[in-house]
């Protein structure tokens, strides 16, 4: 997975990059500039030093010559001979190269140099410089060593001093004399001179012999210093680099008064200045950029990152479903606008969700309608039938549920009853429920016995059951004539049978749920209902209803709630469902209903028909059945007591004689007719009319009385009518007893 970058992280990265580039650029710029500045200032330093030294040399030379000239002028003013010989003597004594006397008109009147006699000082630029001595603007004048106006190849250094008699005396050094003078001045003059801190001035004569050097190499060739000067290729006053005494130095020279004056400055020193500057600049820049960096970072954090965090917090609340959360970041326009936009979006979203929810609610309500209308919902469903009553309710935990119940007559006297629970809830369960209901009904109506219908329905439901849903179901067919229920239990809760005010679970073993695995067998089981019985079918929403402490309602509470007399008919079935609903409600309290609660109650009034094995052991079953039936018909007690005996006599008769040793059934049907109770006995035994047997003589004493025949006789005597007929291989014995007697 790619790791996400934070805004502040990205910002910091780029900010750092930009700052680093800016720093680098400014450092390069600063470096370049400082290098140039340092060099320029170093070169200036070299130049100035050279100029200084040169001036020193010249000044020294000037002062020397001027002093000599003044001495000579003093002697001439003092009266020394001013003829040629006198000048020559002066020249000799003062060790100068030439002495000229110039009159007030600027003409050389006496000279030690024959060629200059009568030379007019005005005739050359060099010589004209001395004219200031004649007009009184100067008292003395010194020139540098240079070519003369008279002869450009002749080099001289002149000094002139005014004479008291007018005119002036001019004294000159020739090259040799000037050299001696200068040499004297220059040797060692630069020994203690520094250029900058470690730089120096080296002076060499025209033959590159050192005359002044800090390292005291005077007299040696300039080569020892490492400097090498070639005038034609190396212009004066420009910088060249040389290894001076093993150290790289910037050097500059000038050629003056016949000397090379070389100024030397180690490059280290030049660059030291630059390095210091650059370091200082760097330090300052680092400080500035760090501050900038910090300020921008804090600003971004305050203005952007914190706001985004705040927006994000609100957004995650919204994502978690709190659509009432408002984004409220108002510290700047952009975020205020963003907040407003988000709030508006969420508000719009809320409206859409509300609209969608309303639509879903409507659709669920439709679905509920469809589901409800798929279940029989008119009660009483069979108002014309006296033999049974039915009532059913379904309370779904959601709008639509997975429970269902169903009942329908397969034949006139065969009622299918069904309660089922689809795994899960909501639309998928409801859809699967509809399929399950339809499939079961299809097979049932096709004529399949309950177990066969369950088997076929299970296989059908397993096909394409990709959702892995399943159905628990209890389905039974009630034979309304006999009260016999053939049923199949596919993993469903056991129904409750309420008889004589006592509730018991029908706890046969259950088979596998429907749609779980195809091909599994289902067993048919039976249950004999007696007239007056209530059969209560339900789903686990009843027994698994929970209260606040998470206890379940459970089977025991259900049995307790149902262990009472509910009366008969329509009122009884409603009362049973109402009682359970109330008991569950009282138990659960405020705990919301977690599962669908479905209940179906059957009251079996019976059409008072009992099919039973023709065995004397079944006598209690028969008399119990008849007594309940008569009670239901409102038969008076005395009549009922006589009927009781009659029923026993007839049943015992059939049990003892009808089938011999073969097993066989007898069907007993009780009905009322014109304020009389009519009981019919049918068996398929050998044809036998007990009424044909002669009555016993009841007037005989005990010793003569026979044991047999007494029962039928009693029946005849106590009943209002007894008839026998053979009907379709059946013996049909009918007794009648009027209620009023």
């Amino acid at each position, binding site marked *: 997975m790619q790791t996400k970058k934070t805004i502040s992280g990205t910002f910091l990265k780029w900010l750092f990059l930009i700052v680093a580039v800016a720093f680098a650029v400014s450092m390069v710029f600063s470096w370049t500039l400082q290098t140039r500045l340092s060099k320029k200032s170093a070169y200036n330093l070299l130049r100035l030093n050279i100029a200084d030294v040169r001036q020193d040399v010249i000044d020294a030379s000037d002062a020397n010559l001027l002093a000599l000239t003044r001495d000579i002028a003093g002697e001439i003013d003092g009266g020394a001979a001013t003829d040629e010989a006198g000048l020559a003597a002066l020249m000799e004594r003062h060790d100068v190269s030439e002495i000229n006397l110039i009159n007030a008109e600027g003409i050389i009147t006496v000279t030690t140099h024959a060629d200059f006699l009568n030379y007019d000082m005005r005739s050359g630029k060099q010589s004209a410089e001395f004219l200031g001595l004649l007009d009184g603007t100067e008292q003395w004048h010194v020139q540098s060593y240079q070519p003369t106006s008279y002869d450009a190849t002749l080099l001289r250094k002149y000094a002139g001093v005014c004479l008291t008699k007018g005119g002036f005396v001019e004294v000159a050094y020739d090259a040799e004399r000037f050299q001696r003078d200068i040499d004297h001045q220059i040797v060692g003059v630069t020994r203690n001179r520094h250029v900058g801190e470690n730089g120096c001035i080296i002076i060499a004569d025209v033959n590159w012999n050192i005359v002044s050097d800090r390292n005291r190499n005077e007299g040696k060739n300039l080569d020892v210093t490492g400097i090498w000067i070639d005038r034609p290729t190396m212009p004066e006053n420009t910088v060249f680099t040389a290894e001076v005494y093993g150290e790289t130095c910037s050097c500059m020279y000038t050629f003056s008064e016949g000397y090379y004056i070389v100024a030397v400055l180690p490059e280290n020193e030049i660059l030291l200045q630059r390095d210091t500057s650059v370091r200082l600049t760097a330090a300052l820049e680092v400080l500035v950029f760090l501050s900038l960096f910090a300020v921008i970072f804090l600003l971004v954090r305050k203005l952007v990152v914190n706001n985004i965090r705040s927006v994000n917090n609100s957004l995650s609340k919204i994502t978690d479903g709190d659509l009432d959360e408002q984004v409220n970041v108002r510290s700047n326009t952009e975020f205020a606008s963003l907040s407003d936009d988000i709030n508006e979006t969420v508000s719009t979203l809320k409206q859409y969700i509300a609209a969608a929810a309303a639509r879903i609610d409507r659709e669920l309500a439709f679905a509920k309608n469809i589901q409800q209308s798929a279940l029989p919902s008119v009660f009483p469903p069979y108002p014309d039938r006296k033999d049974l009553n039915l009532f059913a309710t379904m309370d779904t935990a959601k709008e639509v549920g997975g429970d269902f119940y169903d009942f329908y007559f397969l034949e006139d006297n065969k009622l299918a009853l069904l309660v089922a629970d689809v795994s899960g809830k909501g639309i998928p369960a409801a859809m699967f429920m509809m399929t399950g209901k339809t499939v079961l009904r299809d097979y049932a109506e096709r004529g399949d016995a309950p177990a066969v219908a369950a088997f076929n329905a299970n296989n059908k439901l397993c096909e394409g059951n990709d959702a892995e849903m399943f159905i628990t179901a209890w389905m039974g067919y009630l034979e309304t004539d006999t009260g016999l229920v053939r049923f199949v239990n596919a993993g469903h809760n056991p129904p409750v049978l309420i008889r004589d005010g006592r509730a018991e679970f029908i706890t046969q073993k259950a088979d596998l749920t429907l749609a779980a695995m195809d091909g599994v067998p289902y067993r048919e089981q039976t249950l004999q209902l007696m007239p007056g019985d209530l059969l209560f079918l339900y789903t686990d929403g009843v027994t698994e209803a929970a209260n606040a402490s998470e206890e379940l309602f459970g089977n025991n509470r259900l049995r307790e709630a149902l262990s009472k007399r509910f009366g008969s008919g329509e009122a009884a079935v409603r009362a049973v469902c109402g009682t359970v609903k109330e008991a569950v409600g009282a138990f659960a309290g405020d705990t919301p209903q977690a599962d669908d609660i479905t209940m179906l109650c059957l009251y079996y009034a019976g059409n008072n028909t009992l099919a039973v094995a023709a065995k*004397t*052991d079944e*006598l*209690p079953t028969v008399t119990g059945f008849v007594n309940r039936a008569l009670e239901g018909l409102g038969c008076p007690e*005395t009549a009922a*007591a006589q009927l*009781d*005996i009659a029923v*026993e*006599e007839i049943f*015992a008769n059939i049990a003892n004689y009808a089938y011999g040793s073969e097993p066989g059934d007898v069907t007993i049907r009780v009905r009322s007719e014109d304020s009389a109770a009519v009981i019919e006995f049918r068996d398929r035994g050998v044809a036998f009319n007990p009424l044909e047997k002669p009555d016993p*003589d*009841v*007037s*005989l*004493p*005990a*010793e003569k*009385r026979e*044991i047999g025949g*007494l*029962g039928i*006789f*009693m029946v005849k*005597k*106590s009943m209002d009518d007894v008839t026998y007929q053979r009907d379709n291989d059946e013996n049909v014995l009918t007794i009648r007893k009027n209620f009023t007697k």
Partner: protein
Amino acid sequence: MTIQKNLQGSTLTIAPEGRLDTITSPQFESELRADMNTVTDLILDLANLTYISSAGLRVILSAQKVMSKKGTMVLRNVRPEIMEIFEITGFSSFLTIE
């Protein structure tokens, strides 16, 4: 059904309670037979007998036949509904009902 028996010397008092029908009569009959040989006076206390069918009547008839030969048999506290049966069947004509 329950049967109370009280044997004093050769006098047996026996009191069946409830129903004397096809199912319960064999039990009543065997209770009677057990003591029949030594008893000369048999008293049937039917105060708590509420029902009797031909099966019960048969037992009473055969007891009557035995007792007629060797002693006496008396029925006491017969309820009206039982009495009615005795009337219908003519049993009242030969039974000694006190």
